[in-house]
């Protein structure tokens, strides 16, 4: 599954990734004021979160997570 982690040390709680996720994969912990990966299996590897993060806290794996049936 593509989104691997959000580094809580680095996360500044800006919520840009929380808004920007088209699949609503990323949640926000009101207590710690940090983003976290809430619905990992729904990630579609669009890289919005990693590209938009101002503090480089997000890492997305390039490994294929979406289904393609082999044809050979």
């Amino acid at each position, binding site marked *: 599954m593509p989104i691997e982690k959000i580094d809580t040390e680095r996360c500044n709680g800006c919520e840009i990734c929380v808004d*920007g996720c*088209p699949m609503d994969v990323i949640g926000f912990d009101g207590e710690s004021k940090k983003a976290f990966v809430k619905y990992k299996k729904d990630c579609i590897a669009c890289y*919005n979160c990693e590209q938009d993060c101002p503090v480089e806290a997000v890492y997305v794996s390039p490994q*294929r997570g*979406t289904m*393609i049936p082999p*044809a050979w």
Partner: protein
Amino acid sequence: MSERRVKTDVLVIGGGLAGCFAAVKAKELNADVVLTEKNYVGKTGCSHYARDFMVFKEEWGDKFDEWMQQFSQIGEYIADRRWDEIILRESYPRFRDLISWGEPFYKKDGTVGFPEPEEEPFRLAFRKTKYRRTAVISKFGARHKMLIARKKVIDSGCKILDRLMITDLLEKDGRVVGAVGFHTRTGEFYVVEAKATVVSSGGLGFRAAPYGRQFNTGDGVTMGYRAGAVLTSMEFGQGMYVVKDCDTVVIDGPVAEIGKKRDRVTNANGEEFLNEIPHVPINILWPLEFHKGRGPIYHEPYGVDREKYKEELKKFDETAEGPWITMLDRAGLDIFNDRFEQYMAFSGNFVTGGLRVNTSCETNVPGLYAAGDASGTNYTGPTYAALGSGMAGASITGYRAGQGAAQFAQKVKEFKLDGSEVAKYRQIVFGPLEGKSGFSPDHVLMRIQQTIFPYEIRMVMHGKRLQAALTMIEFFRDHFVAKLRASDSHDLRKAHEVRSMVLGAEVMLRTALFRTESRGWFYREDYPRRDDKNWLKWIFVRKEDEKMKIWAEPVPKEYQGDTSLPYEERYPLQYQKE
């Protein structure tokens, strides 16, 4: 669940570029506008992930007749020429609208900025061939182009409701009077009453692999169908290139653009199976190669100035496109030096099919309009007319739908919903949250994908295989969809998406069975040739007595091209030696 009521003149469902244009235009005509989006306006829709915008302008040397001829030929003579003309004529004014919203584009000198009205921006030029002349694609200069559109929507005075999953249209006295849905985070029930409704929620993509389409689950198209709207050209679909082992789309586009020569695409025998094909849309040739057992298909770097290519790709990373270089590097793929396995993934029904509309983007159901990929304009026929025509089409249909909806809202009478009508919808929306047992949306999604995605089902088609897939989809409809179970409001969104996809798949397969010929990217092994005698027609579907009624209507004579030409000349895209 608590209930929220929203009242407006015009409701726009889906906030990609088409929806933003519809909202802004309707507001400009003094309508109150609510724009809903199941994701977040500014970060979604195919638009967020697109880069090209087709701009046609005769003053810059584009020839109208040549382009109409090209659309006709690439659309294999069933492209709707009224729409082709609209797309060409209105691409420039919509391009100027975007610039006035603050959207930067690439200028001719390669810098990013705001071209003056008469200034030709950077536009790609494909090599000229007998079959395709030049491309007239400009490029968005900002990766956050949809956030710029969001700002325009808000500044215009429209109200945006993000994370609102609309599930069904509200009907009263044969009219669409808004829609119902729920907030995917809070779970609140929403009733949006509207005098006119625009559906601009994208195509039917089955959450396929190609980048930027995984949320296009046909929600708007199927809710329109359920409300009695006619769908058209739902049998068509497209494949898109993906890198097999890395979650990105690459790469033919940039190669064709930057290099003088197309990269080599070879099969397992090392044969370049695309070489003799003129530059017409060729996506169907990949699955045909799979079908002959000649995979893997490799993409090999060849004939490209690598440094220039890398520089260009980096530029797209930083502006309009995805982070390709980063991701390919991370996956350990050196696309400049090594060959890699390339795959053509079925990505569903996008540009051409959808809710049948007239040139005001009005459907057959009063009060219901459609725009963008959700609208069925037939402007490209069974292929894809030109790069960038998706974004131009989204802008143009959005603008027209917003205009039509605002005008309808001005003249239409008030209505009043009663409690029992709303209660019925509440049950449909929250049904999957009730009870403790049932099938999860994830399970149903997996079964849909396993049924539709193999190349031999929907790309290299055969009546028997389409029928087999349809049998399974009917089972999913009767057994899984009837017993969907969602665990929370996030899961409930997925439940409604699979409900939509199962219906969409049924429409797609039934109409594909109906078209007993091949045309463009629509290839049937059991009917491997174009049948001009019987099939210069469009296919339509609507709900009638709870059944799918499917019929065909001939395209107007003047769209059919010169039927006296030899087959090979009329159809430069040859599936194989026919």
